[in-house]
């Protein structure tokens, strides 16, 4: 018998343990213990379990271990991953403390990436659906059958009847090839997740000051004096960014979080502003009201670098504290305090994410955030900026390299001139490229005839309508008949029942993914669905662009597992079958069906002048990867070493050719540094004047600039007028003649402009009045599904549009109906830290899946009591479009009364039914649940067709 003497408070009790007391995780975890593999795993002793589960991926003694480096594939922070590999098996992960981005850290997702190499639940072979059953087939058979079907559809309906939905998980090289493949096939019906994550940001921000990307970096946030987060829950969506954010906070920065939910990010904030979902413009104007009222704006900055602010002033005048409260629900003193914190602590940064972008007026939201920062004089400064956190690991790169329906790589647009530029880069005859498209003109968005080649394609948010809509009402010959979902989760798109119907109408559905995905099971197709196993980025190599525009090089960790193939190989096989491989890979070496990744990088280096993806050669990228420890963790500048003076990953624009050795641009629009060293001005993108007012900068120019005022973008003629033409070499002159900074393939115009201290894209003011948009000044518009009928008259949505991205698009006709009586609860959605996107990878990974086992809805105790719902109980959520989902209720004050929240990463259930039996054997994810977007509703942004998934209505009832 042992004597145990303890102090009173610590005396042990028979309580069942620490976990018992707590929070939603415990509640969720306990509730789902018998799910999936859990039942089996629980029955095995630890040691046996290890063997059963890890299938020989455990580290072994006495075998040499190699260290390989990749980049996490789960978010845009770009954390370095160090893999330990033994005999080709990925046996361990170590912290990459040399990476200036993550200093060794990871979030739950990053800490578990090794599971990709175990991949028990991955799709193992190409498969197709035959009479409702999954059949294995070989790669050759699959490519042949798919290719034949595509050619048949092309013949009958034209190339636009095939839609190519690509991925933010592509590497830069794969993204570029994907866009090129769609071009060679002859359609603009190509798109990816950026449409539904930050398209309104890119459009809004680029139209304000030139580029649509994050202006500063996570690391630069160390220098902030204030940080305002609107619709960003960094603690769950960008966890490692929180390391930099909390460092800033410890340095004394004030942190404000504006969100409908008291998020885990809000838990760390100094000031929390709760707003009603969908009222961002009202809140920002409400803050700006105080700024203008008190004269807190930066007047000198505005007079030099901002155009159109007086027109904004008129609008802001309406947003008195009372009106702001009426619309947003945020009390006057709370809003005023937020404004005051931002005004008194400069430089300050703004961070926004999907909470701001996913609205019918998302482009208004993003522009209002920009205006706030411009008024405070915060853009183009270290510690300031618009730190727009992107989502997926390479959504920035895939946007830049343009897996998008409305442009070409480098944001060149779809005009004939843009196609000619890229045809030159591709070394192809423009006429041949044009011949690939449907030749018959159609009626475009503006009612005028337009060639399909120059007409924006159907975006991913609307592919459903591209299938279901009567072709008579569409801006293309026929409906979509074949659909590729290539690294793209359908559960991130809304309107489940209609989606199911659309899927069932397709002639062919091809899913290219490491996992079968929700798309494979949510419909009742019997034939003509193909599953092609794609490798993850750990099974190939290439470059990836982090949110801060830095490009990092990934090494290959392991060979492709099972029968999977990397995307570039699958694309080559398809191109060969479809007959354009020779053109598509004209200057790219191909080794046994695998295109040489470095050649792809070099090819886009030759064409991406607009955003400076030209200086980052594979050699320089690899040099940075190897010497990453030489970069300062705040400035990102290499201090000594072989990359001395460069910024980590050469954040774009990295001007000119690689030989020019531009260091990259760590902070956009910062005139305090010479352009040659990473400084910039605002881009002169919108001409030199509007309504007789000067759009160029006045009295502001970058350090060392020989033009000491604003100037337009550089052209060959301008060089001549300035007398700088002879600075070009004879070879450069030849290529530059008649060209501009964007189309001169020699890079000479850029080189000479920078030599004279000038930004190739000009020096203008940022514009706060975007005359090309539906709302030139951002204004508040109520969501399509709003409970505030009293506000609809004051702040109505847009009129319906007959044709917009080839499709009729509804606004007013939905908003005019009152659903709020039957569906009184506001519904918003968001992220969980363990999961990402459609969640397929993470829900199949036992280390993550165990932490989140149930799809749930957060309900305020008041609503729960009124509805008679207990914590942990199953409930039905009904949408006004008559879809329903069955989820577990979680009663919490995190949400306000009248508002509910669901995460969006679940899948594998459909309207109450578990679809486990419909997955190919052994591939069902460990955790399945209702996809929230099954019941999310119609609503698309007025500029980009971004879906409105951050605000809708629902009804909740016990199940």
């Amino acid at each position, binding site marked *: 018998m042992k004597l145990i003497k303890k102090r009173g408070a610590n005396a042990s009790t028979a309580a069942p343990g*620490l976990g018992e007391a707590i929070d939603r995780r415990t509640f969720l975890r306990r509730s789902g213990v018998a799910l999936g593999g859990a039942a089996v795993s629980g029955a095995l002793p630890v040691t046996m379990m290890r063997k059963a589960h890890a299938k020989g991926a455990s580290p072994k003694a006495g075998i040499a271990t190699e260290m390989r480096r990749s980049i996490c594939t789960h978010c845009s922070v770009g954390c370095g991953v160090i893999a330990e590999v033994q005999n080709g098996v990925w046996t361990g992960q170590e912290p990459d403390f040399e990476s200036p981005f993550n200093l060794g850290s990871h979030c739950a997702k990053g800490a578990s990436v090794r599971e990709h190499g175990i991949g028990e639940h991955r799709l193992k072979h190409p498969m197709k659906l035959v009479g409702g059953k999954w059949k294995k087939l070989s790669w050759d058979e699959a490519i042949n059958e798919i290719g034949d079907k595509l050619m048949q559809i092309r013949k009958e309906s034209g190339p636009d009847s095939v839609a190519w939905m690509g991925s933010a998980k592509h590497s830069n090289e794969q993204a570029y090839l994907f866009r090129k493949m769609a071009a060679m096939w002859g359609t603009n019906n190509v798109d990816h997740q950026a449409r539904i994550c930050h398209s309104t940001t890119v459009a809004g921000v680029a139209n304000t000051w030139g580029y649509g990307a994050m202006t500063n970096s996570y690391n630069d946030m160390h220098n902030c004096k204030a940080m305002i987060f609107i619709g960003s829950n960094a603690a769950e969506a960008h966890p490692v960014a929180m390391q930099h954010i909390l460092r800033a906070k410890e340095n004394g920065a004030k942190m404000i979080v504006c969100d409908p939910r008291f998020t885990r990010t809000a838990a760390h904030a100094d000031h929390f502003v709760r707003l009603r979902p969908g009222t961002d413009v009202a809140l920002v104007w409400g803050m700006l009201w105080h700024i203008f009222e008190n004269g807190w704006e930066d007047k000198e900055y505005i007079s030099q670098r901002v155009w159109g602010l007086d027109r904004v002033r008129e609008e802001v005048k309406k947003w008195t504290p009372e009106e702001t409260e009426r619309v947003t629900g945020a009390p006057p003193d709370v809003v005023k305090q937020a404004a005051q914190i931002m005004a008194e602590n400069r430089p300050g940064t703004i961070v926004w994410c999907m909470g701001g972008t996913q609205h019918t007026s998302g482009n208004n939201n993003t522009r209002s955030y920009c205006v706030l920062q411009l008024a405070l004089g915060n853009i183009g400064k270290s510690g300031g900026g618009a730190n727009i956190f992107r989502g997926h690991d390479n959504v920035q790169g895939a946007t830049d390299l343009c897996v998008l329906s409305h442009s070409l790589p480098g944001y060149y647009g779809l005009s004939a001139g843009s196609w000619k530029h890229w045809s030159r880069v591709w070394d192809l005859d423009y006429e041949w490229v044009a011949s690939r498209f449907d030749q018959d003109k159609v009626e475009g968005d503006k009612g005028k005839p337009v060639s399909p080649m120059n007409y924006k394609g159907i975006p991913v948010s609307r592919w459903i309508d591209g299938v279901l809509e009567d072709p008579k009402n569409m801006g293309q010959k026929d409906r979509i008949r074949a659909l590729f979902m290539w690294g793209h989760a359908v559960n991130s798109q809304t309107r489940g029942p209609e989606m199911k119907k659309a899927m069932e109408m397709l002639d062919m559905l091809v899913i290219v993914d490491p996992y079968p995905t929700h798309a494979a099971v949510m419909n009742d197709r019997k034939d003509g669905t193909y599953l092609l196993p794609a490798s993850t980025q750990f099974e190939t190599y290439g470059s990836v662009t982090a949110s801060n525009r830095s490009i990092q090089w990934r090494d290959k960790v392991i060979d492709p597992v099972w029968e999977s193939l990397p995307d570039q190989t699958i694309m080559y096989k398809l191109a060969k079958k479809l007959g354009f491989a020779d053109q598509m890979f004209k200057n790219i070496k191909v080794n046994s069906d695998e295109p040489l990744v470095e050649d792809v990088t070099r090819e886009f280096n030759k064409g991406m002048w607009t955003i400076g993806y030209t200086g980052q050669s594979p050699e320089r990228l690899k040099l940075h990867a190897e010497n990453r420890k030489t970069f300062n963790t705040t400035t990102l500048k290499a201090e000594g070493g072989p990359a001395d003076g460069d910024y980590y990953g050469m954040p774009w624009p990295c001007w000119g050719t690689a030989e020019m050795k531009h260091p990259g641009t760590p902070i956009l629009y910062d005139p305090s540094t010479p352009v040659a060293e990473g400084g910039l001005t605002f881009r002169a993108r919108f001409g030199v004047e509007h309504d007789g007012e000067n759009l160029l900068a006045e009295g502001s120019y970058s350090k060392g600039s020989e033009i000491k005022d604003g100037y337009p973008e550089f052209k060959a003629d301008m060089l001549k007028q300035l007398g700088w033409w002879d600075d070009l070499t004879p070879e450069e002159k030849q290529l530059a003649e008649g060209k501009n900074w964007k189309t001169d393939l020699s890079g000479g115009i850029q080189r000479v402009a920078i030599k004279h201290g000038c930004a190739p894209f000009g020096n203008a003011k940022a514009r706060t009045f975007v005359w090309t948009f539906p709302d030139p000044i951002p204004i508040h518009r109520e969501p399509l599904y709003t409970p505030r009928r009293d506000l609809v008259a004051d702040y109505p949505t847009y009129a319906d549009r007959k044709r917009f991205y080839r499709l009729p698009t509804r606004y007013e006709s939905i908003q005019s109906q009152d659903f709020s009586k039957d569906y009184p609860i506001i519904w918003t959605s968001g992220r969980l830290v363990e999961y990402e996107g459609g969640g397929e990878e993470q829900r199949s990974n036992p280390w993550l899946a165990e932490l989140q086992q149930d799809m749930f809805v957060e309900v305020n105790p008041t609503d729960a009591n009124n509805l008679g719902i207990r914590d942990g109980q199953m409930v039905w959520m009904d949408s006004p479009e008559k879809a329903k989902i069955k989820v577990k209720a979680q009663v919490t004050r995190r949400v306000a009364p009248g508002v509910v929240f669901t995460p969006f990463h679940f899948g594998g259930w459909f309207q109450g039914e578990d679809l486990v039996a419909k997955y190919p054997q052994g591939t069902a994810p460990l955790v399945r649940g209702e996809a929230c977007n099954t019941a999310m509703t119609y609503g698309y942004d007025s500029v980009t067709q971004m879906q409105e998934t951050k605000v809708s209505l629902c009804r909740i009832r016990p199940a």
Partner: protein
Amino acid sequence: MTRLLSLFTGVSLAFIVSGCYESPSVTSYEPGVYKGAKDPLMQANKDQRAETMKKRFEMVQTDR
């Protein structure tokens, strides 16, 4: 729940910035004598290990 509370009430509010060392009033038990196998880790050079760990700690866990 009781156990959880005890953990958090055990959290001390009095933190003396300068005196971060073991308190003399520790809980005392009457321990049994370990009856298991010897851990080879105990044979290794501990001072050398402490030195390695110190470096590692600075590299991995500090804000740089």
